């Protein structure tokens, strides 16, 4: 009779991402994972294990340390694909209001200026530097079209729902 292991903390994640069950905690991913450098992790107490075993995984602030470099996925001997799990958790966390303010700010920047980070308070400085190098000054990007897109996909409404709790 096959042995069945019950992972209590993992049940919720396992239902959505059955491949997690194949994770044998071999810790190979920690050899290439930059998040191993974050406080509290090591090559035996790994970031991926932390993500997979949190009781309320979408509330786990560590998920935001993942840069989607896909190295864990490339090296995983069992094709667990942790990036898919982490990206799905980030999506859920955003919707429920657990995303860091920096993420919300960044999206706001993209939608209002067309740039991924704030530039307008320092535009004078940036354009002086660009002028010295013989480059055209930067201007606000035309964002009407991307605002239309965000309206249609519901991202603007999602931003409103996902305000930090």
């Amino acid at each position: 009779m096959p042995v069945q292991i019950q992972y209590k903390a993992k049940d919720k994640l396992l239902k959505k991402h059955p491949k997690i069950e194949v994770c044998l905690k071999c810790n190979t991913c920690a050899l290439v994972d930059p998040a191993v450098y974050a406080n509290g992790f090591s090559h035996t107490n790994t970031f991926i294990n932390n993500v997979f075993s949190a009781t309320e995984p979408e509330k786990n602030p560590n998920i935001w340390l993942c840069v989607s470099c896909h190295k864990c996925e490339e090296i995983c001997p069992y094709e667990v694909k942790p990036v898919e799990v982490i990206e799905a958790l980030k999506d859920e966390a955003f919707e429920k209001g657990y995303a860091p303010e920096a993420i919300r700010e960044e999206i706001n920047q993209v939608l209002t200026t067309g740039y991924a980070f704030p530039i307008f308070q320092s535009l004078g400085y940036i354009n002086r530097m660009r002028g010295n190098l013989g480059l055209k000054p930067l201007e606000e990007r035309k964002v009407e079209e991307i605002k239309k897109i965000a309206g249609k996909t519901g991202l603007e409404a999602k931003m409103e729902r996902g305000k930090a709790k």
Partner: protein
Amino acid sequence: MTAKYAFFKGCFAPVRLPWVEKAAYKTLGNLGISLVDIDEFTCCPEPVGVGIVDNQTWLAMAARNLALAEEQNLDILTICNGCAYTLRNTIHKINEDKALLDKVNEIIADTGHSYKGKVKVHHFIEVLRDDFGIKKLKNSVKRPLSGLKVATHTGCHILSPKEVMNFDDPFDPTTLDELVSALGATPADYDMKTMCCGWTLMTYGAREGSYKLLGDKLSDMKKAKADCIAVICPQCFYQFDMGQWIASRKDIPQYNLPVFFYLQLLDLAMGAKIEEVGYSLHKVQNPNLLTKLR
């Protein structure tokens, strides 16, 4: 023959590293590769923020950018691993899924654009390697950077996922080493070559960890006797330059290892003086490097 590309500058280079943008116009222009500005381009959008929290918006905004180049019958050239990742992942996802392509086109219909699936996205390093060619690149060198040992850092998002980016081996990338060698410099073989630069740890809350990561990487580069670092992604540049400067004031030893965007090295090898490549705007500068460049 003049090759012509729609120049996708992204956000980071024009704002924080304008000398990199300048080096792109100048060096690629000198090689006969012409860059066309499209002012309507917006953020690609950035994959780790926008890309993950709303996949549909990510694909649609990227598809709009792709459509803008397509309308001018141009392929895209990027100078950022992140932009290459977003645009190429979008192509990979929507070109293979007709239903998704239709959905994305329905979303962007109001903007007056439509993506047809014809445009290709090239990182400048691929244009140099595949389209221009390493042999021709070698012939363009006027002042070989011999005597300079360079630690290359290819970065993450141009390498993975391998089946999408299709650029180099994620665990043993050699392209940047080959291109550095083409300029007459010697690539430094160091241990942590494929480890991330730590930019995300720095940005999203694990600063101490990112200092430690930088310390380990820089120490390995130093052990391999590198004189400087070469990168092909603006965020990696910023992390090795500004990040190193911040970390060396806090936790890690003074490695004083200057970093160059590959196009700056190309500019130097094509005869530019160090004063002309924006080096004075770098945070990390080392007088020993100037001696080696003479």
